């Protein structure tokens, strides 16, 4: 416990917090307090729920694909198109600028819509709502929402997806889960990409997975090379297992902190 003020004592903290609450409710002079109790992300949350319902009504499963720039998110989708064309993958691409990734996906044989976020560093439920409407996925199809390359902000924004996947590549360092805990805590699957480069880099897959599981014990893990093809089949097999549910699939990040 902190010897100066006892700030690390949880019981004391709660008492201080209650005292702070009481103090805050007392307005000064002619001023009055308006109790709002509104989440700053409520608009995004509302739209995300709307997306989730929209997808469920069409029996469409949406995957939110996240990771650093250059982790191989687009390459992974190209590999899915190559190994599992029967999945009928549709893609929403998120980047600050250019149409390059959507063009790559189209060349791989899938329909794709590009969202350019400009200065934005993540996709949000609103932009995804419009992209989904334009994409018009067939019932039973799977939509991949490839987020802007970033291990921070996308973790905060629910898009209405059913499944969250993080792509980590062996060139990035096996301590990424320690450095970006929010991202790794909020995912359903962790894909380790570029394993064909393992002989050339210092990266311990077991270490990376162990660190991710310390935050997220249920996370599914895959090791593959999106360009070389090793391990892609077992990832596709996992993807095929989604799609038969009729109720909206709510990923663990959206359940955490949700009202009971």
């Amino acid at each position, binding site marked *: 416990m902190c010897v100066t003020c006892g700030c690390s004592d*949880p019981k004391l903290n709660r008492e201080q917090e209650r005292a*702070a609450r009481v103090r805050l409710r007392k307005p*000064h002079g002619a001023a009055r307090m*308006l109790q709002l109790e509104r989440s*700053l992300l409520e608009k995004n949350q509302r739209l995300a729920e709307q997306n989730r319902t929209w997808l469920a009504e069409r029996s469409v499963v949406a995957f939110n694909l996240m990771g650093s720039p250059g982790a191989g998110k687009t390459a992974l989708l190209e590999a899915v198109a190559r190994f599992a064309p029967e999945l009928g993958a549709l893609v929403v691409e998120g980047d600050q600028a250019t149409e390059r990734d959507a063009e790559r996906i189209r060349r791989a044989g899938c329909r794709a819509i590009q969202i350019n976020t400009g200065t934005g560093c993540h996709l949000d439920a609103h932009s995804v709502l419009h992209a989904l409407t334009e994409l018009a996925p067939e019932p039973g199809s799977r939509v991949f929402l490839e987020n802007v390359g970033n291990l921070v902000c996308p973790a905060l924004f629910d898009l209405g997806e059913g499944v969250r996947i993080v792509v980590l590549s062996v060139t990035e360092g096996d301590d990424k889960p320690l450095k970006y805990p929010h991202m790794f805590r909020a995912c359903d699957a962790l894909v380790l990409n570029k394993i064909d480069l393992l002989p050339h880099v210092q990266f311990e897959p077991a270490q990376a997975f162990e660190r991710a599981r310390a935050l997220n014990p249920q996370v599914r893990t895959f090791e593959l090379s999106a360009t070389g093809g090793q391990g892609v089949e077992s990832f596709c097999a996992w993807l095929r297992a989604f799609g038969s549910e009729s109720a909206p699939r709510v990923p663990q990040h959206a359940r955490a902190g949700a009202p009971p």
Partner: protein
Amino acid sequence: MINEHCAGRTVTRVVLEIGKLAAVVPDAFRFCFELCAEGTPAAGAQLEIVELPGRGLCRDCGQECDLDSAFERCPCGSFSLRLLSGEQLSLREVEVI
């Protein structure tokens, strides 16, 4: 949001709740608040941030515990925690005159 509720009034104080497990840094928020408040009813308002502790439910021992960071484990040693709270980012109240 403040505009919506306080149009035409002067906001003197804004109280925010930020959970300790929310990926939001109070200092960064403070920095941006001043800039964003320019030209709105909240211009010049005092910003108070109440940091709320995280709470987790241990899947192994069934006990609840406080969490101050994403890497904490239950006192029983387990990392398998279900997050109950700590990711809040909300506008609790505003003082207007």
